[in-house]
């Protein structure tokens, strides 16, 4: 399973009728099982790129291939975790997680077993029959992760899933997502605007420039996990990436 992004550009029509270029010539290859972070300033087109890969939006130019097959619409092979909360508020946690299985026509008993498994995986075993409004922000995103994984997608796309969480919860969630990734070995594309988060998580960091988003550089990081945020390797990479971002914005 391999994900290929080929020369993707996206142009919107702004509300004054002038074209807004959100992305320009993005090309990227992600081999199976890799954890890739996409890093860039606010408004540079990270969400747009992820939505194009997910098939929720069509690129103006270029295309996205999964295993050599062009993506032309949303598919359960590409799981997505959204920037804002996307759980169905009228469904219990367990029924949120089994939603995708329900759509696929999986038997009720199998559905329940699989949903349970993923519920346990994200550490919410005791909340099966709670409603989303009874959960904290961090717990909700964990349910969203479980829901996206339950249909066994080839690639998981995450759009700043921890952006709205406090620093402590955020760090805990980062450790957890790595544990889950190590267990499931999915290909992950993880959007963030936190350099720290990218350095802690990624095998590769794709740094985008400010609007229009282009690839500034792709940094590979092979430091073994679990990483120590304060190690020399992490510190050096953080400095390097921060330098790239400053340059990209015409600073020092």
């Amino acid at each position, binding site marked *: 399973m391999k994900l290929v992004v080929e020369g993707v550009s996206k142009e919107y029509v702004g509300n004054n009728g002038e074209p807004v270029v959100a992305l320009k010539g993005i090309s990227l290859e992600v081999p199976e099982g890799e954890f890739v972070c996409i890093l860039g300033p606010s408004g540079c087109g990270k969400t747009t790129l992820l939505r194009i890969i*997910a098939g929720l939006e069509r690129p103006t130019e270029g295309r996205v291939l999964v295993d050599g097959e062009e993506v032309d619409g949303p598919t359960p092979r590409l799981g997505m975790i959204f920037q804002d909360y996307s759980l*169905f508020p009228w469904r219990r946690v367990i029924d949120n997680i089994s939603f*995708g299985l329900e*759509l696929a026509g999986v038997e009720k008993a199998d559905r329940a077993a699989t949903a349970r498994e993923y519920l346990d995986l994200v550490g919410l075993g005791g909340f099966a029959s709670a409603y989303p*409004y009874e959960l904290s922000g961090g717990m909700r995103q964990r349910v969203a992760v479980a829901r996206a994984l339950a249909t066994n997608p080839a690639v998981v796309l995450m759009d700043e899933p921890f952006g709205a969480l406090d620093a402590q919860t955020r760090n805990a969630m980062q450790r957890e997502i790595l544990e889950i990734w190590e267990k499931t070995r999915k290909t992950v594309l993880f959007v963030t605007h936190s350099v720290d988060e990218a350095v802690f998580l990624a095998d590769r960091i794709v740094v985008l420039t400010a609007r229009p988003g282009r690839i500034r550089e792709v940094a590979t990081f092979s430091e073994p996990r679990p990483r120590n945020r304060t190690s020399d390797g992490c510190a050096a990479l953080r400095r390097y990436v921060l330098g790239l971002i400053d340059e990209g914005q015409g600073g020092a």
Partner: protein
Amino acid sequence: MREGFGKLWNGGGARNLRWAVLPILFLVAWEIAAILIDNPFILPRIESVASVLATPFASILGTGSLVHNASVSLQRVLVGFLVGAALAIPLGIAMGRWEFVEELVNPLVQIFRPVPPLAWVPLALAWFRIGLGSMVFIIALGAFFPVLLNTLDGVRSVKRTWIEAAMTLGARERQLLVRVILPGALPTIWTGLRVAFGIAWMCVVAAEMMPGTSSGLGYLILYSYNFSQVQVIVAGMIVIGLIGLGIDFCLRQVESRWFRWRELER
């Protein structure tokens, strides 16, 4: 003195009974006025109305009992209401989901919506003759618009992220409609159903005053008027009010049980 009143008003047991203050005052004022006016054809005494209400199974002026007429009215309103809602909900969902349907249907909706259901009475009689058909038509018409507009509103309030999340989980259009859009819109649709039932209930009473009717609470009221039985008229009005209140209460119970997520969603 003022302090004493405040204490009484806010005191433990009184707090639960506050709602009763105005209705009791109203009844007292009614009784006093009835005694002063001293004319049962203008305002009957409470006792005479109460004695009608106390014998709900007794036949009134040969038109059947209160209970009989109320159940006839209820059946009519139920049929008309269901017909109206069954047409309005699918149409509202289609209008909310597909822009071309809205563009197509909206002008017609805007034109017919301000026409009161009762303005249709002559046409209803011409098309369906006297009887259940014409009444159902009028009641359904009264229920149709509030359900339609609330359904449309509800579908529009469905978050795009819910729809997109469902799509990435593999939902097709039909599954989106049934499993995301309908449940997401349901609380608002329910509000529409409640409003619609209130209107349908008013319509049924009015429709029963149409010529040729021979049963129902509306008929009972009109018939009693011809015999100057004002205490029956008032008793009929009270029954109409209580039934409307009771049904709204039931619909509200369902709302607070099933659709709590709408208020609690952050």
